């Protein structure tokens, strides 16, 4: 089936749905659709089993009858035999699947028919049972990637250390956490019901959040757990005890959540606890129960049958937690000390290593640790508000979000923020030389580093270290060779039609709801202006003629920076699509007279990142600019973070009320070597956060279907779009404008 007829078929599916609704409660539908009904009857009765098939259709309820007859009629237009086979199985199909499933089944059959003839089409229809079984299976499971957009904010909203919801291989054997991420199975198919499976994914995520939040993975119990005899048994008992303790906390703090977990558990049916377990559970129900208490109870339960696991309970990997925790403790301690001394210098206005005069007098040699303290947090902090409060010389101080995050995380690991953590910086022990860095060097070995003049340096975010690598990226602006001017002309010819509607939709979108006052002419009289002008006139002054109001775009005061991916991965049609859509977009933007700039980016490794100016803000859309657009060619790799930092900086200098950074890319932010995968994604995300902080709205438009899953992570769920047609780019930009200006 070619794309067009597939589309038509989809349309038909939609129409059927509508029709079903339309006729839902008007009786005697056969009379209304008499022609159709008669056609179908005639068709079926031509065959020996016709009346039996008709009977089976009449036994369906009215909506189903209409559905089946409609489809028989549709299929018969292609092939009457195929339609008969469908008719003979339709009633049964509807007992096996919902109507959407039946439609899928039928579409698959018609697809096979179109491509490979009647025999294949009929064969698909005859494989009804296996199709239905497959359909049931597919519609039972829930994919994690489709739930992430909801699960991730839930976990962050609940508070505490920001945990990343993700998946890995071992998660399919049981969800778990390493205290920085929550690993869930990529697909959840525990229950036969899809809704329950969705509920289960959510339950797993929040349960593992609760383990972290309520201290299952604090350093102290973790260390004790490591030295208990018979590790496997101990861990299993500990996991169960902690489940009971965490659930008791949930019952108090988040009763709704607790009920939710219980509902799921009851799906499995509960078996009563043994007396020893009952006792342990009662102990852990107490308000002040800690993970240490669970550790103490482990010995009392050896040899007892383990209570049945709850479906959301997952598994535990204490060893993985320990590894992550150890690194984190060192890292966060250093970060906190550094941040506190910065805070003291900048915000609290005290130069480093130079105590204030009064300080010297009163407290000679006082260490920062004596100056900073953390106010006592309630022993039992409620979910969502466990926030250690920083104090400076006994007074609460405004705490930057980053410091607050560190304090929260440290408290979550240690149960408190130890005093020596608050003792000031100066302790700038360098991190271990990094393997990635070494690898990067390898790639560039033999070639001199390009630190020469004209080069700019930018930091890069290293998510492994959770800090910036300062001055790590070396970037230079490089001229772009002009391309063939005929390309512009050809593009404009090719998209003559769409261009008209693009211009129109730009004007329409942007003209919306804006009232221009004090205009020399317009659709309406501006009463205020008229009165003033009249007043001037009465006083014998010159009357101002700007007394009209007009519905038009106003000083939107927008500046747009377009950042075009010129990496090697865009080679081929993506590059053509980029160039063509830029031409169309420029045409559209020109009619508006808004400020815009276009830059390409690419580069090989962090030492040679390149930016190619195509149109600077102060340049006109000249012939040179057009030729540069035509000259956009795939270069080397993608290092997106540094490009965002550089171009965001340029955009930041433009005095506009609304600043827009639009990335046009194939959606693959990876460079050579270490910038691949998560590292590149996190740096890009960080660069976007920086941009957003300086008042820039960032959007990404990709010409690639695969980009979907991490784009929301980088740009935020609402700030990216995928296009597959050149003429969609200007329309998307118009969309973004609309969102920003209304």
């Amino acid at each position, binding site marked *: 089936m070619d794309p067009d007829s597939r589309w038509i078929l989809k349309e038909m599916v939609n129409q059927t749905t509508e029709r079903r609704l339309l006729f839902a409660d008007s009786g005697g539908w056969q009379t209304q659709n008499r022609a159709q009904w008669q056609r179908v009857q005639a068709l079926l009765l031509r065959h020996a089993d016709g009346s039996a098939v008709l009977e089976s259709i009449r036994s369906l309820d009215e909506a189903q009858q209409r559905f089946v007859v409609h489809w028989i009629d549709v299929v018969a237009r292609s092939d009457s035999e195929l339609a008969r086979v469908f008719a003979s199985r339709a009633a049964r199909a509807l007992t096996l699947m919902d109507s959407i499933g039946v439609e899928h089944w039928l579409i698959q059959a018609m697809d096979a028919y179109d491509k490979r003839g009647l025999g294949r089409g009929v064969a698909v229809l005859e494989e009804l049972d296996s199709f239905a079984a497959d359909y049931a299976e597919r519609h039972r499971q829930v994919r994690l990637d489709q739930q992430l*957009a*909801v*699960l*991730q*904010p*839930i976990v*962050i*909203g*609940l*508070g505490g250390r*920001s945990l990343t919801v993700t998946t890995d291989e071992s998660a399919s054997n049981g969800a778990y956490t390493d205290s920085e991420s929550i690993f869930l199975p990529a697909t959840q198919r525990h229950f036969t019901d899809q809704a329950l499976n969705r509920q289960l994914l*959510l339950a797993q995520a*929040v349960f593992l959040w609760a383990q972290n939040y309520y201290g299952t993975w604090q350093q102290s119990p973790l260390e004790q757990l490591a030295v208990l005899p018979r590790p496997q048994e101990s861990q299993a008992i500990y996991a169960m005890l902690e489940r009971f303790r965490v659930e008791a906390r949930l019952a108090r703090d*988040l*009763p*709704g*959540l607790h009920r*939710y977990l219980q509902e799921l558990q009851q799906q499995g049916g509960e078996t009563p606890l043994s007396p020893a377990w009952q006792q342990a559970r009662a102990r852990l129900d107490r308000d002040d129960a800690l993970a240490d208490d669970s550790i103490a109870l482990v010995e009392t339960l050896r040899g007892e049958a383990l209570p049945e696991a709850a479906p959301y309970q997952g598994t535990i990997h204490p060893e993985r937690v320990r590894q992550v925790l150890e690194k984190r403790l060192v890292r966060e301690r250093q970060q906190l000390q550094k941040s506190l001394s910065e805070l003291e210098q900048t915000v609290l206005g005290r130069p480093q290593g130079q105590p204030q005069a009064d300080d010297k007098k009163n407290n000679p040699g006082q260490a920062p640790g004596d100056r900073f303290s953390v106010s006592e947090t309630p022993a039992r902090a*409620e*979910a*969502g*508000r466990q926030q250690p*409060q920083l104090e400076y010389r006994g007074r*609460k101080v*405004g705490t930057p*979000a980053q410091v607050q995050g560190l304090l929260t995380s440290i408290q979550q690991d240690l149960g408190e923020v130890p005093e020596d953590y608050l003792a000031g910086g100066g302790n700038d022990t360098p991190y271990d030389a990094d393997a990635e860095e070494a690898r990067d060097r390898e790639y560039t070995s033999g070639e001199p580093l390009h630190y020469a003049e004209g080069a700019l340096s930018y930091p890069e975010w290293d998510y492994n270290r959770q800090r910036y690598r300062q001055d790590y990226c070396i970037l230079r602006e490089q001229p772009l060779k002009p391309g063939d001017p005929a390309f512009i002309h050809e593009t404009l010819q090719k998209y003559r039609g769409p261009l008209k509607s693009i211009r129109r939709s730009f004007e329409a979108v942007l003209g919306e709801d804006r*009232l221009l*006052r004090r205009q020399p002419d317009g659709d309406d009289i501006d*009463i*205020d202006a008229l*009165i*003033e002008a*009249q*007043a*001037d006139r*009465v*006083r014998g002054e010159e009357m101002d003629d700007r007394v009209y109001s007009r519905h038009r775009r106003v000083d939107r005061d927008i500046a747009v920076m377009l950042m075009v991916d010129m990496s090697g991965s865009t080679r081929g049609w993506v590059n053509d699509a980029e160039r063509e859509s830029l031409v169309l977009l420029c045409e559209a933007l020109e009619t508006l007279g808004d400020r815009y700039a276009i830059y390409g980016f690419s580069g090989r490794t962090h030492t040679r990142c390149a930016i190619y100016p195509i149109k600077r803000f102060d340049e006109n859309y000249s012939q040179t600019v057009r030729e540069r657009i035509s000259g956009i060619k795939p270069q080397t790799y993608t290092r997106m973070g540094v490009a965002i930092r550089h171009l965001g900086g340029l955009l930041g200098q433009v*005095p506009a*009320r609304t600043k827009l950074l639009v990335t046009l890319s194939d959606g693959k932010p990876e460079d050579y070597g270490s910038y691949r995968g998560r590292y590149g994604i996190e740096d890009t995300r960080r660069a976007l*956060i920086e941009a*957003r902080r300086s*008042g820039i709205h960032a959007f990404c438009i990709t010409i690639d279907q695969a980009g979907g899953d991490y784009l929301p992570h980088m740009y*935020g*769920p*609402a700030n990216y779009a995928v296009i597959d047609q050149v003429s969609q780019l200007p329309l998307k930009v118009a969309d973004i404008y609309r969102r920003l200006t209304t």
Partner: protein
Amino acid sequence: MNAAVSDALKIEEYRIQDEPYYEPLGDEVAVFEAAWRNQLPVLLKGPTGCGKTRFMEYMSWRLDRPMITVSCHDDLTASDLVGRYLVKGGETVWVDGPLTRAVRAGSLCYLDEIVEARKDTTVVIHPLCDDRRLLPIDKLGEVVPAPPEFSLTVSYNPGYQSVLKDMKQSTRQRFVALEFGYPPAELEARVVMKESGVDQAVADRLVQIGHMTRNLKDNGLDEGASTRLLVNAGKLMRTSVPEASACHSAIAEALTDDPDMLAAIRELIASVY
């Protein structure tokens, strides 16, 4: 501004009779009072709905000065603030704008969300923030000196785009800045109780939900729920809207239109009930 305003109640003479309920967060009351006595303009920084307006009402009562509030928007012109000529019975009459009236009457003038105003509008406040404290009125050819009781306060939300970058450094440095944040949990619960009339347990849960949404700032939300939203939800509950749906309407829907985000917040709300 239209002609009707000139006949309206003289706001510069109106004084707040009853003490407005205001729960101080720190020493802002003392600082504001000191700034007022020293004739220094004040800048209130903080997210929307965290009590800046209420604070001004309270200070107006406390200092026993009338207050004129102007909510700035992007159509606000300099004439809207300073005043303009109107025609009345064939004659032209000058009508003072709110800022001029505040200066003449020596009242407190509060320009809410100054960021929103057009840049050419904010220029008129510059000479007032100067230590000469003058309001020039070009159309009248007049310069109005501000009496000692007059005080100018502006507010802005640093979470959004910052004007302070656009405002000249010399202007900015004449403001005494007060930072407003969300109150600590206990205090905020008290505000919610007093303002909406719900009981402690209900207010605690509302504050808990508020905190959850604030955790989501920059993680899908531009801004977490303000105290105002919590109060609104409380008010709905007092008029017998069930707690969860009150939260959904007054908090979740007010924060975002994104369906995934709404679903997430719905679950967060459900988690506390």
